[in-house]
């Protein structure tokens, strides 16, 4: 199946793929089920069956194999939306990578992440950074190898930003020719092309986004200790599924490593001009710390 969101492989020829995605059959029942929900089943061996009615059923095994049984055309954007979202999130938990619900951009050769719940403005912020010439590592889910030898690394995810039509209009991006995230959805995939960061970068700061109504309440506050742990746990993508897979110990170990990185609450005022201000402030803050 075509996956236009992923950049073509430019590494060595003939290597063994780390992750295989195949079309195929998915069993109705996993062996030795430890969790059975309306969408997600977890098997005794940690494998996951994720069924999205009307879209596709996915089997995720061993952190490296995904089998897709589409309930609609295999090349429909809907199938890729769930594959590259929830399904890759579950795969991250299986692999021991920490997926954070965050966008991530490159500033001064380092990865800077902005976490927060859906609707807080991660993608809009990412799009603003990209428009200012910064490179994108992730627009929605930032994948972290917390135990990399030199310190936590961000693994670049997907070279596109998902934006609602009103955000496109506000940013003066034309929706012509853009693919909707799902059929007939007013949310579109904006490819970032050459502005995608292809290699892993050291994670240098994590911001927890929070919107305030008044610009005078905008602030940047360091989070430490329990507050940092709680905030990071709350920002883990598909955390509940990960916990059901028995991965809470692994998450805490990863978060413990992330505490070596500054964790900050970023409260910013609503509106595009304030967003622009935030981009300038963050760029100045992190560009100044070059080698």
């Amino acid at each position: 199946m075509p996956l236009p969101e992923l950049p073509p492989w430019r590494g060595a020829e003939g290597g063994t793929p780390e992750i295989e995605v195949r079309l195929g059959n998915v069993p109705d029942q996993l062996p030795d089920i430890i969790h059975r929900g309306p969408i997600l089943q977890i098997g005794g061996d940690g494998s996951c069956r994720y069924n999205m009615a009307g879209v596709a059923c996915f089997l995720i095994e061993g952190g490296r194999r995904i089998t897709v049984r589409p309930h609609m055309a295999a090349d429909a954007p809907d199938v890729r939306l769930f594959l590259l979202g929830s399904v890759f999130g579950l795969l991250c938990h299986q692999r021991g990578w920490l997926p954070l619900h965050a966008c991530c951009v490159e500033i001064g050769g380092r990865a800077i992440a902005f976490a927060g719940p859906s609707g807080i403005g991660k993608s809009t912020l990412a799009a603003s950074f990209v428009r200012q010439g910064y490179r994108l590592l992730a627009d929605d889910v930032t994948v972290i190898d917390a135990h990399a030898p030199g310190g936590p690394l961000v693994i670049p995810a997907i070279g596109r930003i998902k934006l609602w039509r009103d955000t496109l209009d506000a940013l003066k991006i034309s929706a012509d020719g853009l693919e909707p995230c799902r059929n007939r959805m007013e949310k579109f995939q904006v490819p970032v092309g050459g502005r995608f960061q292809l290699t892993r970068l050291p994670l240098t700061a994590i911001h927890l986004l929070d919107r305030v109504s008044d610009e005078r309440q905008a602030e940047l506050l360091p989070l430490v200790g329990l507050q940092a742990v709680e905030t990071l746990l709350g920002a883990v993508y598909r955390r509940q599924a990960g916990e059901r897979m028995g991965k809470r110990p692994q998450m805490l170990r990863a978060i413990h490593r992330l505490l070596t990185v500054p964790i900050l609450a970023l409260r910013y005022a609503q509106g595009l001009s304030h967003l622009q201000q935030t981009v300038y402030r963050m760029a100045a803050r992190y560009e100044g710390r070059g080698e």
Partner: protein
Amino acid sequence: MLVCRRETLLTADLADRMLMMDPDNGLYFELDTIGTDIWRRLATPVPVAHLVADLTRDYDAPRAEVERDVLALLHDMVAYGLVTAC
């Protein structure tokens, strides 16, 4: 009775406090200044009586009060698996 720290805990030093995470049961804790001091005194296994005597001296506090507070803290720490009797 000796008190021993559980060495599988993940810890992080904050300015005047200490964060502890227990990946085995998924819990996490923060010790205040005195709790952190007591934790550091447990770096090598120590008898409870010695711990109480040392704290009474160093904090210049009534022994009965120190003993009551330390026993309460150790009780909680045992309950949450942060320390064991050894």
